């Protein structure tokens, strides 16, 4: 069994596409605030308090999310963004998967990066986009994972697409079929 490849060190934090951890930061300059999160999320409670104190003139709306209702939430968010006007800020807190899906949707609806604030507050499991069949495999916790679409064993690479809201995966044993590195649990 070949040894796993060494940790990639070639990409600096400044240049990597992998999102850095961020926090929900209130933007009092906005006219409307839309928050997407599960109820009882402490980061959101703090945000709402800050907005009430600093941005009393603007509207605050909360879309309640549950991690298993992601598809439904996406529809609600899309509808809301399609009628939004410039002046809106979107805040998303929840699992890695929820946050990245919501951000990808916001991008598709014309939201700019400085109009979005996110915070991963729940499962760090990643969405992985398969280079070969283009399927996105949700909730990947290990460095090597089976593709839901084509069953290839994918290495989860340190490249992230904002458009897909997913990390790039490619066939881990493409060069020597059957020779796979030992998977590590890294995002559970």
């Amino acid at each position, binding site marked *: 069994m070949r040894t796993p490849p060494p940790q990639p060190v070639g990409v600096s934090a400044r240049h990597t596409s992998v999102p850095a951890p961020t926090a929900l930061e209130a933007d009092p*300059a906005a006219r409307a605030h839309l928050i997407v999160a599960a109820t009882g999320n402490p980061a959101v409670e703090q945000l709402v308090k800050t907005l009430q104190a600093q941005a009393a003139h603007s509207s605050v709306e909360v879309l309640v999310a549950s991690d298993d209702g992601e598809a439904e939430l996406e529809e609600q968010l899309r509808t809301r*963004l399609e009628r*939004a006007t*410039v*002046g809106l800020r979107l805040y998303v807190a929840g699992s890695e998967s929820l946050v990245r899906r919501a951000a990808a949707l916001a991008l598709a*609806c*014309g939201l*700019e*990066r400085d109009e979005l604030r996110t915070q991963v507050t729940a499962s760090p499991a990643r969405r992985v986009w398969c280079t070969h069949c283009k399927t996105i495999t949700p909730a990947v916790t290990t460095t090597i994972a089976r593709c839901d679409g084509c069953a290839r064993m994918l290495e989860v690479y340190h490249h992230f697409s904002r458009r897909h809201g997913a990390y790039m995966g490619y066939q881990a044993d493409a060069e020597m079929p059957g020779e796979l590195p030992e998977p590590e649990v890294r995002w559970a």
Partner: protein
Amino acid sequence: MGVTLAVRVAAVRDLAPDVRELVLEPANGHPLPPFSPGSHVVVHVPGERTRKNAYSLACAPWATGAYRIAVRRIDAGRGGSRGVHERIAPGDLLTIDPPRNLFAPIVRARRHVLVAGGIGITPFVSYAHQLRAEDVPFELHYAFREPAGGPLLDELRDLCPDALHAYADPTGALLLPALDVALRDQPLGTHLSVCGPAPMMDAVVGRATALGWPPSRIHLERFGVDTGTMEPFTVRLAGSGRTLTVGEDVTLLEALEEDGVAVPFLCRQGICGECRLAVVDGTPDHRDLYLNPQDRASNAWVMPCVSRCADAGPLVLDLP
């Protein structure tokens, strides 16, 4: 840099008492290059001293048969715009730099709000042609002083009647209330582009920001910076030890160029950052709009197109 275009002045027309339009055709039989909307050309204006001034191309981006520029005369300047008004006649040959662009429309925008004050309308002429051709929705707010209409207004009325909002607004009282309404109701994906006199631009940016527009949606083209008085000073090139004098009617950039030092440049107005030079010793007098506060305070950089030395020098530059 170094590549220039030879053009012949095909026509000269006054669009207003202080605004002159020049139509420039190629002087050597080859079509002029097409350009992206928002581009400008640097015109080498003849005079006792050649002034290189940037002017927006106020024509369709595919107008390769002739370029058009509209130049507002500024009496308090160093003579570039005066030269355009006084020294250029039809038939004259001119040298211009090829089109460059520091103000292109945002490609991902689903809609554009364009705001022009006075001569700031010029970059939006090429925008209007392009956006119409691509069927991208936009609105163009054009405020001018003259009751009869600002330069290029008739052409814009023909080109984009539904998009155009014109304000005969000598006191500036009409534009901001109108924008107050317009900027509240733009669909997500709209971008704002502004060009005009500095106080007007600052007021529009202030209003948009107060209405929740983030910096990523606000795009500006500033037409130059007030350069102030120009005292002579000396410069030393750190590499060779050579010294030169920057006279009172010359910019540091011009003095370096006249001395054979090739410095990259673009706007020549203190805005774009292209001509930045490292300072080894001496104190720059910063007059640009480019350097951030930390760089400015460190005095490790200078923008030679507009900035000077805080005293008689020598300002020592990291040049060979």
